């Protein structure tokens, strides 16, 4: 009996992850409210200065997406026990397909995360409107893919370690710098009406590079996690 193809496997993994999330509601009930609280606290911390709050709004949104969104990508370590991973290996699972499946699920959840917090940021911070804002939707998309890739890689690298709860964020936060730079540069370019091509291409290059590394190293990480 041959199992499903690469994409079939990735689909099954992603579907399973989404279903587990649907049951536990970790992202919807915990991570999103947590991020929303952060968005509420920041203006209090920097003082009630309306123009200032409006100008930091987009930046704060990216930071909150990065710091809280990465929690979304660390969900796996709790549900994927060693027994579950071993079972999947013995079912003929391709580790790269598993990686793709996990990243896809995290990507969808991060889109939900951004989809809730982005309107909230606009309402709370009232940032200056920029022309060509539909481009920001592309940036949101690329940010979600990139963060899902980095987070999944980092949780693979640190899975099962005692220090993983602190180590994984330490790895993710600096590594997502290119995403942050790309995202904030795009916004800046839009507000100054200069070329957005360079930051967008930077995001695309980073996402592609991470995907290549993730797919090629999945097998080794799988082997080193048992």
């Amino acid at each position, binding site marked *: 009996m041959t199992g499903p193809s690469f994409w079939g496997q990735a689909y099954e993994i992603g579907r399973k992850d989404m279903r587990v999330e649907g049951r536990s509601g970790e992202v919807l009930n915990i991570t999103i409210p947590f991020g929303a609280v952060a968005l509420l606290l920041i203006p209090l911390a920097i003082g009630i200065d309306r123009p200032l709050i409006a100008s930091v709004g987009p930046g704060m949104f990216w930071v909150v997406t990065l710091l809280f969104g990465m929690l979304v990508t660390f969900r796996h370590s709790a549900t994927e026990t060693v027994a579950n991973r071993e079972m999947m290996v013995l079912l003929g699972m391709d580790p790269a397909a598993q990686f793709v499946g996990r990243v896809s699920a995290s990507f969808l959840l991060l889109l939900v995360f951004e989809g809730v917090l982005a309107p909230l940021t606009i309402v709370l911070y009232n940032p200056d409107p920029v022309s060509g804002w539909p481009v920001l939707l592309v940036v949101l998309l690329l940010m979600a893919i990139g963060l899902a890739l980095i987070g999944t*890689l980092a949780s693979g*690298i*640190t899975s099962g370690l005692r*220090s993983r709860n602190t180590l994984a964020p*330490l*790895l993710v936060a*600096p590594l997502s*710098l290119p995403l942050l730079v790309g995202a904030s540069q795009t916004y800046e370019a839009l507000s100054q009406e200069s070329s957005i091509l360079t930051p967008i291409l930077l995001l695309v290059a980073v996402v592609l590079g991470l995907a290549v*590394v993730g797919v090629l190293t999945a097998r*080794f990480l799988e082997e080193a996690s048992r």
Partner: protein
Amino acid sequence: MNRHRILGLSALVVIAIGLYFGSQAPLDQLQGEYTRIMYVHVPSAWLAYLSFLVTLVASILWLTKRRLVFDRVAESSVSIGVFFTALALMTGMIWGYPVWGTFWDWGDARMMTTALMFFVYVGYLALRRSIPDPAMRATRSAVLGIVAFFLVPLSYLSVLIVRTLHQGITVARPDSPIDGEILLALLSNVGAFTVVYLTFMSLKTAIARGEEELEEQSAAVDATPAGAAITAPNLEKVRDV
């Protein structure tokens, strides 16, 4: 003479040459004596990039060839790279204060990317410390060694991507806008630092190897299989305690 001594002595010689050129080179018309910080700052940054490139290559080689020597090289190179990244950051701050008027500029992409590069590789060393099994440690840190390298070209090219206070790419361009003698002094110091790197690498990998052998010896003494370490519980005593 062993390898370490030859490397160490040649490092001393090239450092002396670098110091000579550095002290003889003319000063930049604007920066004056502060030009000379460049002869430490630029080679340090170069070594940081070089070390992490070596780590990248060694990490890939570990994953494909499975020889422990590649893991030792990867780890040693990160330790040295982290040191020189810190040195580049610190000399940069010392240089930046009189020249730009600030130790740290939040708008400068080169500073930010380099600082975050530093933290990722600090994380690399932290990761190694939290995995006891050598093979697992080598594999996982190899993956991180590959992923973390993303920040290296980003840091180098950041002056191109983002609006920054740092000067653009100076040396590696066809119409290099740098005075010939300043360039000579800079390149001789880059060369000297590279020999220092090789010396450090030779010593650090030897230390890593020695540590492994030491562990091996202590393991040979304590070669009881895991299960045989357990003896029968003293039931009589347990009842009476």
